[in-house]
């Protein structure tokens, strides 16, 4: 078991004919992901890595019984692409694209909510379930091994860093999930905790957060009240100055809110073991599992 992505997931790649879409479709296929179709309006009839391309998500879904979508469409068109996937009832909808206008994000997130669909991202590395050999993601598959720890994060390479550390320490992952680096994302930290809570095969959680907003504080409060399994946390940006966006649009300390100190305190208060360095995550997991 796992969350969001499992052996039955059948994926559509929106923007499959673009550079990123083509490259990562190849990487996903190599990993084992069941990509059943691609979509690029106006390019029906082409094929990429042997995958048929359609003009619309609806046609692609009808022809190949797809269940999920991953979006590589450029930012000005990504909001529309997500709306199209949501309209076709694909679930989850994983939006890899960075720099999507926040107004478009708000629209897609609430339309998905209304229909009970999970949007992951935008600006996410995606979702990977190593046990099912399926990734709807740009994550490098080889750093993740199958196991019982749920991993969620607001960043990409930091997630790989921590996953690689876990793999080296012999700790496997049920599902690893990139929540996205933007201020407004579909699946939130607290919602991700709730999903993992329902998964019987996830026996511990790693929550990788960063400065900006208070998603980690909210998740920590929820964990304190409701979640009985071991949790390890890490917060990036302890030394970030206020008022500067640290790469991610969402990673900014505004006034006194969004600081790493507040997040670490909330995690400590909730009984979460907080790692000082990425490599401490695997060590702490060994101690508490």
């Amino acid at each position, binding site marked *: 078991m796992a969350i969001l992505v499992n052996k039955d997931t059948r994926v559509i790649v929106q923007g499959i004919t673009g550079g990123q879409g083509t490259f990562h479709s190849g990487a996903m296929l190599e990993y084992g992901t069941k990509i059943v179709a691609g979509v690029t309006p106006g390019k029906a009839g082409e094929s990429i890595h042997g995958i048929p391309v359609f003009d619309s998500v609806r046609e692609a879904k009808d022809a190949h019984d797809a269940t999920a979508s991953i979006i590589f469409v450029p930012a000005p068109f990504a909001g529309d692409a997500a709306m199209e996937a949501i309209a076709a009832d694909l679930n989850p909808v994983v939006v890899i694209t960075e720099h999507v206008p926040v107004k478009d994000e708000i629209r897609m997130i609430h339309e998905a909510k209304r229909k009970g669909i999970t949007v992951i991202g935008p600006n996410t590395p995606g979702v990977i379930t190593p046990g099912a050999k399926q990734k709807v993601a*740009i*994550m490098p598959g080889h750093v993740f091994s199958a196991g019982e720890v749920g991993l969620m994060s607001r960043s*990409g390479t930091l997630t790989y860093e921590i996953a690689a550390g876990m793999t080296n320490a012999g700790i496997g992952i049920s599902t690893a999930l990139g929540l996205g680096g933007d201020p407004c994302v579909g699946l*939130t930290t607290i919602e991700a905790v709730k999903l993992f809570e329902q998964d019987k095969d996830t026996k511990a959680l790693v929550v990788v957060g960063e400065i900006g907003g208070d998603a980690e504080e909210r998740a920590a409060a929820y964990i304190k009240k409701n979640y009985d399994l071991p949790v390890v946390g890490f917060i*990036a940006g302890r030394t970030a100055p206020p008022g*500067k966006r640290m790469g991610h649009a969402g990673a900014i300390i505004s006034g006194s809110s969004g600081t790493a100190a507040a997040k670490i305190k909330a995690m400590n208060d909730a009984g979460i073991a907080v790692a000082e360095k990425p490599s401490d995550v695997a060590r702490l997991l060994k101690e508490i599992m």
Partner: protein
Amino acid sequence: MKLFEHEAKEIFRSFNMPTPPGGVAKTPAEAKKRAVEVGKPVVVKALVLSGKRGKAGGVKFADTPEEAEKFAEEILAMRINDLPVEAVLIEEKLDIQQEIYAGITIDRNERKYVVIGSAAGGMSIEELAEQSPEKIIKMHVDPNLGFQAYEAREMAIAMGFKGKQINQLGSFFLKLWNIVDAFDVELTEINPLILAKDGRFLAADARLNIDDNSLYRHKDFIEKIKREPVEQNERERLATENDMAYVELDGNIACICNGAGLTMATLDAVSVYGGKASTFLDLGGGADAKRVERGIEIAMMYSNVKAILVNIMAGITRCDDVARGILSARDDGDIKVPLVIRMVGTNEEEGQEILNKAGIPFLKTMEDAASKIVELAKEVA
């Protein structure tokens, strides 16, 4: 993109939102001229993209054009939060009955716009939230419907306004929402929104930030205001051009990494070992040899940099590519300070071999690399 007060007010006026009469001045003489045009006592305000302008002395009231000239001279010579004041705004000084706060921003948790109002304007919303949270009214905007006129009136009522003021202030909030919607605004504040003694509502201040990711939709406007969306130094500009995220800090170790989270974590690791970072440089996904070399070049342009730490977690990126980029930067003579490389992941062995042959030290863990670079930076400093 942050707008200057006069730019924001131009948008306000185009939506029929009243602002005090006045204009921009770049010299004291111009300021005097504007004050004569206003023909009444004026306020002289520094035009800077920074909050806390009033506290820094960047807002002064002048009774005569001569006084306006003198204050303009003082303010134009100031730096506010380390930003030069290149122009001032001269506006009629209003007879104030009441100062109000009006703003719209994004609630990250709800993923909705939120309209904020308070009858106790004048101070910062953060102070207000701390001292009298009950005086702040917040209304979330339905993502499908937008902010409705009746909601805007409800806002005015909740803020304690009565009679015809309900419609007047309601209309102000509605216009503000229409601006947010039209210009992809991520934050706007009018503080204070003035209720003048003569009963008019006017936007005395204006803060307006447009979502950077939406700027492609607002090219006409950016062209009209005749300036670059963001003020950047040479290094920041080069980083933006190369699609890298770059932030300067006050330490002396440049951290060049791939991915924002990893770069932040690397800065933190440097600090754990007693060092201080000068540079946050995120090369982004798919960093190839050219990007690595370019990143090092940009980092070296900042005079604070006394040591460089390259930390790469190679997923899509390949370590041999990174190694070639480093080699090329060194051979071009770009690297004039101690350098530590740490990289793991795809094609790690190949990358290691390239560096070994070139005699460039290479470490396997982030911890070792961070502690090593701190040591080297101390030796140089």
